[in-house]
């Protein structure tokens, strides 16, 4: 069997809006209640970059959970990822790749959130060093998983990774040059390393998602 023909983009957008609007309403309601009850007071000291990295981390953890759950069985993988009938045969390599992608996204989410949380937790030098060590360990595991995704991926997967990297490099070097020029001329404020990293991660995720969709890697 093969994928069903793609639906009209306008129809897809309308269906997405119809499904997303109630979710957005519910999400906004929950956030408003939390603000009213003072539940987000600890986040008031967080910088914009810290909050952005929190949002990225949450997105990564949710996508990791989705991919990880889908990869627990061939039937689920067909339904949730491939958009095929559940009874279609599944390539075992696709399930392994799905689990690896879930691992990579989950670890990236953890690494995006640990530094700002630890920074605002009032930890001593020893504890902060320990957090740095944990992040280094997670980074090593994630790098290994990323390398195996590249090594075991087919040419479409590699093309998407390479094109995403190239597009990000071009965009980010352009933005960095403009920003550096403005700061050198005292026309813009300096940025800290965490802000730069967060912007880079956000741009990479956005570009990677767009290119994956355009190349047909994701439905």
């Amino acid at each position, binding site marked *: *069997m*093969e*994928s069903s023909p*793609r639906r009209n983009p306008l129809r897809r957008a309308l269906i997405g809006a119809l499904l997303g609007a109630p979710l957005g309403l519910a999400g906004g309601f929950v956030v408003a209640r939390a603000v009213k009850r003072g539940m987000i007071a600890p986040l008031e000291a967080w910088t914009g970059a810290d909050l952005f990295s929190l949002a990225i981390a949450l997105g990564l953890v949710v996508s990791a959970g989705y991919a990880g759950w889908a990869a627990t069985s061939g039937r689920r993988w067909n339904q949730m990822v*491939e958009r095929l009938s559940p009874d*279609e*045969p599944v*390539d075992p*390599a*696709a399930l392994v790749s799905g689990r690896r992608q879930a691992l990579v996204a989950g670890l990236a989410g953890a690494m995006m959130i640990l530094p700002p949380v630890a920074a605002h937790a009032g930890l001593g030098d020893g504890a902060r060093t320990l957090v740095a060590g944990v992040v280094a360990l997670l980074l090593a595991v994630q790098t290994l998983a990323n390398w195996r995704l590249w090594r075991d991926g*087919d*040419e*479409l*997967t590699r*093309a998407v990774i390479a094109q995403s990297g190239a597009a990000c490099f071009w965009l980010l070097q352009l933005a960095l040059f403009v920003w550096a020029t403005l700061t050198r001329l005292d026309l813009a404020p300096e940025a800290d390393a965490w802000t730069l990293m967060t912007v880079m991660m956000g741009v990479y995720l956005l570009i990677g998602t767009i290119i994956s969709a*355009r*190349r*047909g*890697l994701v439905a």
Partner: protein
Amino acid sequence: MRNRLRVLRAEAGLSQQELAQRLGVSRQTINAVETDKYDPSLPLALRLSKVFGVPVDAIFLDDWSPDGV
């Protein structure tokens, strides 16, 4: 690039998954080629040509001509 892969595959009675396994690529790659979202590498195009027993230019359609007509 426009191509006749879906037609050739249907004529051969192969599913996307079966063709993908025969070529050593993922099902998404076959689907992406069929839907003109991805132009395959030269080695993959040659393997497709061998699987279906037709020249590459009978699979992938290019309007360009050296005369510029």
